[in-house]
């Protein structure tokens, strides 16, 4: 106890006094503030606070979020087996000492391949109320998820990388799942359809590089975001009336010989009619070609009133794809931003197929809201330049068009052509970017 004598008080050195008070302030912060501070540290640092003092020994054990990644293990050895064993010990240790609920669990380490220890940890989580589960198996075979994962009915976010999904037949879906991210996964066709169908609150779906199913039947009434890239045969949206952001990439060329069928709705029409709320659309790889396989109408029966951003990967030498692009543009009166990325021909196109678009193909397409255009990967051939010419002539409020060629060759000639084109918008800037 210090005396109240002001003289004696002044004599005491100030610095040690301040340090003592600072430590007290942090340790005596309310519990929820400490929890928040610890949650912002890496798991490794958070656990290390246990050595600060006896007060701090078990402060970290209430963490609700456990992230085990490449930063969690710092071992001098380069041997993956040694690192793996250390990792297993760390996770076991943490889970055993942990006290309280775990809301988020993430496991993503390059040396942790499909070990059966993961099964044990998932079993532990299934007994709790885990809301977010992220598992990334960096190398090796697909990891078969244990049946206990499918008992985690409080999941709202599930993210898997390099896993095999095979739920038991009694699986009833994740009733409150809103976000699903599956990359490099294998599952059967019926498992996929079932999973989507039985997660009625699903809002975000990401599917990349999947195996085992090829028919994408998406029945998800609450879905707003959909991102897919892979090999598939068809895509069917059912009851996806709130889907506003879509990105689709078909990684395999659909080829040129197709059977058409008289009287069936074209793929293009079917695709857009099932997405009435679409706002942002990215069509990647060969998906535009896929959509253009049947008879491409001049315009869609129902216009896309909400579409304001469109990105198309397009082969300007493929007439079907160009007609499909024009059909979409003609049917999107509120389009604000357009991006066209040229895809080069895979094989030289046979002469019979080198048909040019006619003037009438370009008609009645008014891009009245279009402000920004981005063109990339072009070579400056007439087909590409004609399309650019058409875009400039039909966009009265265009602000900026950027053009980035595929290579340096013919750049000057391209610029000369671009200079000639008439612009409907007096404010339009055309910016040529070096490749």
């Amino acid at each position, binding site marked *: 106890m210090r005396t109240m004598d002001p003289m004696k008080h002044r004599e005491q050195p100030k610095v040690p006094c301040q340090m003592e008070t600072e430590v007290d302030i942090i340790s005596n912060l309310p519990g929820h503030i400490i929890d928040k501070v610890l949650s912002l540290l890496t798991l490794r640092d958070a656990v290390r606070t246990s050595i600060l003092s006896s007060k701090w020994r078990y402060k970290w054990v209430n963490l609700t979020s456990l992230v085990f990644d490449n930063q969690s293990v710092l071992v001098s050895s380069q041997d993956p087996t040694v690192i793996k064993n250390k990792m297993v010990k760390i996770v076991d240790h943490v889970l055993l000492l942990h006290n309280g609920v775990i809301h988020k669990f993430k496991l993503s380490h390059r040396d942790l391949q499909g070990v059966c220890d993961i099964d044990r940890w998932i079993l532990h989580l299934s007994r709790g109320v885990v809301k977010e589960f992220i598992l990334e198996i960096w190398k090796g075979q697909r990891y078969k998820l244990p049946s206990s994962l499918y008992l985690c009915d409080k999941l709202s976010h599930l993210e898997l990388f390099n896993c095999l999904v095979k739920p038991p037949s009694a699986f009833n879906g994740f009733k409150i799942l809103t976000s699903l991210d599956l990359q490099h996964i294998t599952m059967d066709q019926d498992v996929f359809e079932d999973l989507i169908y039985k997660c009625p609150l699903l809002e975000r779906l990401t599917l990349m590089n999947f195996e085992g199913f090829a028919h994408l039947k998406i029945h998800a009434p609450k879905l707003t975001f959909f991102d897919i890239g892979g090999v598939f045969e068809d895509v069917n949206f059912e009851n996806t009336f709130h889907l506003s952001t879509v990105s689709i990439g078909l990684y395999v060329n659909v080829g*040129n*010989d*197709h*059977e*058409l*069928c*008289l*009287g*069936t709705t074209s793929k293009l029409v079917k695709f857009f009619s099932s997405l009435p709320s679409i706002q942002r659309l990215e069509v990647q790889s060969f998906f535009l070609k896929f959509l253009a396989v049947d*008879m*491409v109408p001049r315009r869609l029966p129902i216009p896309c009133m909400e579409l304001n951003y469109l990105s198309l990967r397009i082969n300007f030498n493929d*007439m*079907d794809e160009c*007609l499909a692009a024009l059909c979409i543009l003609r049917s999107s009166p509120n389009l604000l931003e357009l991006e066209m990325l040229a895809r080069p021909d895979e094989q030289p196109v*046979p002469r*019979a*197929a080198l*048909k040019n678009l006619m003037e009438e193909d370009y008609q009645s397409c008014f891009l009245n809201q279009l402000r920004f255009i981005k063109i990339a990967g072009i070579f400056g051939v007439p087909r590409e330049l004609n399309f650019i010419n058409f875009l400039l002539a039909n966009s009265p409020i265009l602000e900026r068009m950027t053009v980035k060629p595929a290579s340096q060759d013919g750049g000057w000639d391209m610029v000369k052509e671009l200079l000639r084109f008439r612009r409907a918008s007096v404010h339009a800037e055309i910016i040529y970017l070096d490749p």
Partner: protein
Amino acid sequence: MSKSSKTIVLKSSDGQSFEIEEAVVQLMENIKPMIQQKVVKTTIITIPNVTGNILSKIIDYCRKHVSHKEDEDALIEFDTEFVNVDEATLISLADAARVLEIKCLSALCTLV
């Protein structure tokens, strides 16, 4: 559009295939735009609800009308013979003509 290099195949609902010439397609208003739009070498078009039997007759009709365009008498004779069939077949022919949008054949079938 080079005429010689294109192959057009019509497939009936029961899987029979018939290779036809472009001139024949000109009479089928529903098929014409498909051929015009698709620049591939071989175009196969399935006609649902039309059997091979009926499709074959339709193709004969179109071929006759193309080759004997100028010869009115021959056409009238052919047409009379063409509709000289039982009612069921006539109805099928009329339906097929409607699906493929062959105006002259549709008119012919309704006159009977």
